[in-house]
């Protein structure tokens, strides 16, 4: 059987499974980005807050989740989560091991890491918002919430787009490690295909190439988005 058949869409081909696995990788990464966005916003607020304990907690969070190996974070979330679920099961009179769904565990673990990076992105973006705009909003009588919604959020989102692109790329690559929990994403599927056909080289090359497709495409999309949100900035920055 030629290698074309192996990665094709025929009966013996793995093309279909690999494409499906690519969608799974995208889904885990997207879910982790959303979880990370919520966490990141909270942590960034904590790090910018006037209260010392909140700042301290925020710093501790970013230090731990940016400093610990991603693989260990995934192990900790997966096994820790499973232990917790098992304990709840025992409490409900169910004996035996209950595993955390690997998609959930993976998304939460990568989300925890992505949250630490996103917090730094949002913090930088907040600090980039011109103080004068906030003063202006205050002087025409906008309250805290209105100021937040109309002045801060739109600009923070704009400023954080390039950084978010980086976080997305990082999470995309971190999501390969979710394969250790058995989730059939791109890494795991390439591994299984490689093992069952003994064509390790072929399938790891194909898997790697598919990741390149994903990173290249997402790079394009983020560049496009950046150009789009920059339209209204054209005059103030004096360049496109």
């Amino acid at each position, binding site marked *: 059987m030629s290698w074309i058949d192996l990665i094709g869409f025929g009966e013996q081909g793995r093309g279909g499974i690999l494409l499906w696995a690519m969608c799974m990788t995208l889904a885990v990464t997207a879910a982790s980005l959303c979880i990370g966005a919520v966490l990141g916003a909270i942590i960034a607020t904590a790090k910018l807050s006037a209260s010392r304990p909140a700042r301290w907690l925020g710093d501790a969070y970013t230090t731990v989740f940016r400093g610990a190996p991603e693989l260990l974070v995934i192990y900790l979330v997966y096994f820790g989560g499973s232990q917790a679920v098992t304990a709840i099961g025992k409490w409900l009179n169910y004996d035996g091991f209950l595993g955390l769904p690997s998609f959930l565990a993976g998304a939460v673990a990568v989300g925890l890491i992505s949250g630490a990076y996103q917090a730094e992105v949002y913090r930088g973006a907040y600090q980039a918002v011109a103080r004068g705009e906030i003063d202006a909003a205050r002087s025409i009588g906008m309250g805290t919430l209105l100021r937040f919604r109309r002045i801060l959020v739109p600009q923070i989102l704009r400023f954080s787009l390039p950084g978010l692109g980086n976080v997305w790329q990082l999470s995309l690559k971190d999501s390969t490690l979710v394969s250790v929990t058995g989730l059939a994403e791109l890494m795991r599927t390439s591994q299984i295909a*490689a093992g069952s056909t003994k064509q390790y080289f072929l399938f790891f090359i194909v898997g790697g190439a598919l990741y390149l497709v994903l990173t290249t495409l997402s790079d394009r999309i983020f560049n496009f988005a950046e150009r789009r949100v920059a339209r209204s900035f054209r005059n103030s920055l004096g360049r496109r």
Partner: protein
Amino acid sequence: MDFDVAFLWSTFVKLIAAVPMTLALFAASVCLGALFALGITYCRVSGGLLLSAFGRAYVFVFRGSPLLIQMFLIYYGLGQFPAVRHSLFWPVLRDPFSCAVLALAFCTAGYQAEIMRGGLQAVPAREIEAGRASGMSGLLLFRRIIAPIAIRQALPAYSTEIILMVKSTALASLVTVWEVTGTAQRLISQTYRTMEVFLVATLIYLLINFIIVRLMALVEYRLSPHLRERPNPASGGGRQGEVHG
């Protein structure tokens, strides 16, 4: 999970014994990666069309694809070919440690090359002109003018990359290298106390990273005497940061 201090301590001691392996992976791959990166940076700034295309392609492939797949490609993928198994590279490619080092080095080379290029591009053209005008050329110009400015500029990005590398060494456990993470997994299979062991392992990585961050900050401080705050009588003893803070 009970809080068993004796167990945590014995785990800590066992995992510390695996730290030299982690550090060996880290040091070997960062140094080898820096060598590769120098070559790639040379390709990219040399101006040759073919060379710079190779440099760009290298950076694209190794930064765009995940490290784990690169590591598996080298460890499992290359061993598939009889030609490789019978070549003189086989003793290197058969060994999980050297495969892990190769994969880590190839990967970090892509990132390091970008950092080096950024550093080189930050050297002001006028400083090079001034060096040339005073009769420096070639290696002397590089050693006295280009390298110091480029290194200073690249250092913060470099320290980030180095921290990322410390974390990446954990992946070597997946190709059966017994560094800290691998040893932790082995301990877990003996004791079934997953959380405690992984938490201690995480703590060890955080300690290593903390020490490296401090060391890099020290290097940065030593290399940038011109940026240090001078005592400024106008703002009361040079504590300018405090005034605005």
